[in-house]
């Protein structure tokens, strides 16, 4: 009986603590939400629309705040311009509606340019998420068509493998069917060793990884001019809103020049973001 009492009281202590912790979270979230409203009259708002389910570009943390590479960049832009930064999660399907109605100023969220070139006013791409094909430097494979009957390798669980196994993309699916076989490696080092030693004929990898290997092992590998898939991210504005685009772009260029951009990118190195940044090709 005594034990039971002790047990019940322990349970209730737990419940109270859990409740208090839950309340604590809620109140902090409310505070952070109300802060911008009080300062809204002071500064011009810069509203970034983003999909809150797209790490590492923009996502919701366990404590309920929004974080991400793109949001950090946008925050930095606002700090430099003295704007008030508003991160506005949007329904990805109604992004055009939000943008055209002026509810948001731009979409800054790992936004793919490829295929949407004429739908928005774009900054230059700052992240390249393409998947490329790497072969040995002395290989006679020079185009995707040469891969017929060859052994191609991709890392297990990588986006390259996902792309090659995607049956809904007819072009890639036909290409993958033309291979002699599609092999998987446990890590990229193994993949490049297999490629160098002639075990496989071609390796499909993210552009960041390929760049790194090509730079560090000069003359051993070459990258095919054709990509397996091309995907570049840029900041999208309502079509015709060139003024705001130019303003953002010039600040982003400044951020790149003074190192802030890469500093933010390095925060997300777990996602190999620093290797994917392609802004350097455009900064004058």
């Amino acid at each position, binding site marked *: 009986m005594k034990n039971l009492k002790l047990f019940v009281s322990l349970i209730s202590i737990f419940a109270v603590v859990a409740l208090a912790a839950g309340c604590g979270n809620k109140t902090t979230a409310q505070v952070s939400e109300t802060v911008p409203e009080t300062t809204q009259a002071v500064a011009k708002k810069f509203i970034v629309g983003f999909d809150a389910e797209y790490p590492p570009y923009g996502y919701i943390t366990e404590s309920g705040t929004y974080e991400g590479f793109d949001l950090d960049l946008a925050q930095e832009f606002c700090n430099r311009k003295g704007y008030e930064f508003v991160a506005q999660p949007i329904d990805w399907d109604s992004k055009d509606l939000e943008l055209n109605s002026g509810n948001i100023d731009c979409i800054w969220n790992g936004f793919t340019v490829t295929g949407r070139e004429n739908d928005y006013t774009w900054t230059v791409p700052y992240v390249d998420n393409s998947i490329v094909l790497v072969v040995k430097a002395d290989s006679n494979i020079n185009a995707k068509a040469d891969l017929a009957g060859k052994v191609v390798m991709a890392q297990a*669980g990588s986006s390259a493998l996902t792309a090659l196994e995607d049956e809904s993309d007819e072009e890639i699916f036909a290409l993958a069917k033309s291979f002699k076989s599609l092999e*998987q*490696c*446990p890590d990229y080092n*193994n993949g490049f*060793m297999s490629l160098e*030693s002639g*075990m496989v004929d071609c390796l499909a990898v993210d552009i960041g990884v390929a760049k790194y290997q090509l730079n560090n092992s000069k003359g051993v590998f070459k990258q095919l001019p054709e990509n397996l898939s091309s995907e570049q991210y840029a900041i999208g504005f309502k079509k015709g809103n060139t003024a705001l685009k130019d303003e953002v772009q010039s600040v982003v260029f400044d951020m790149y020049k003074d190192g802030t951009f890469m500093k933010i990118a390095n925060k997300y190195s777990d996602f190999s973001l620093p290797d994917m940044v392609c802004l350097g090709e455009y900064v004058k």
Partner: protein
Amino acid sequence: MINLNSIIIQVLGGAGASLLIFFSTLVISLPLGLLMAFPRMSKIKPINYIFGFVISLLRGTPLMLQLIVWYYGPYYIFGATLGLSWRVPAIIIGFSINYAAYFAEIFRSGIQSIPVGQYEAASVLGYSRTQTFFKIVFPQMLKRVIPPVTNEIITLVKDTSLAFVITYSEMFTVAKQIAAAKTTIVPLFVAGSFYYIFNYLVAFVMEKVEKAFNYYK
């Protein structure tokens, strides 16, 4: 639950690759281990030392590393481009030689556990050295090494999962891939169950073998 069935079928798809490594290694490494045990016990010192060193190297370095050496060695050491067809032979060679080293030591312990008196008795009875070994020592050694050999065989079943280090997709690799694709750990437990069931069978069979050999009791 329909999902579980499809997971089991997919994981089983990788079981063939694991079984191929397992049986090939067993068939090659057991006799090879016996062959390595003799020079290891040789009275000629250089042979004794060489095999002692080879066995210590095989037992003292990770099997994972040995597989990488067998697979990539021909290219990075000799410049020979062998292609993907070298992968399965490299795995079987790597596993067999590594396991032969362990078996050699087990066989040596079995052979050396036979009392000297039996050799003397055999000699008195007019047995030749070959006859002594095959008719007197070997059968007794076989009985004594079954428990440690069973240990190694069980380890071998689980070690087959190392083959992915040289890009060979065996059962555990397949399970990991399904786990990643479906974001569930169920395939890993399914694979774990298969390893357990198979090892249970191994232990069961070896126990039967042990009993069959126990003909004097």
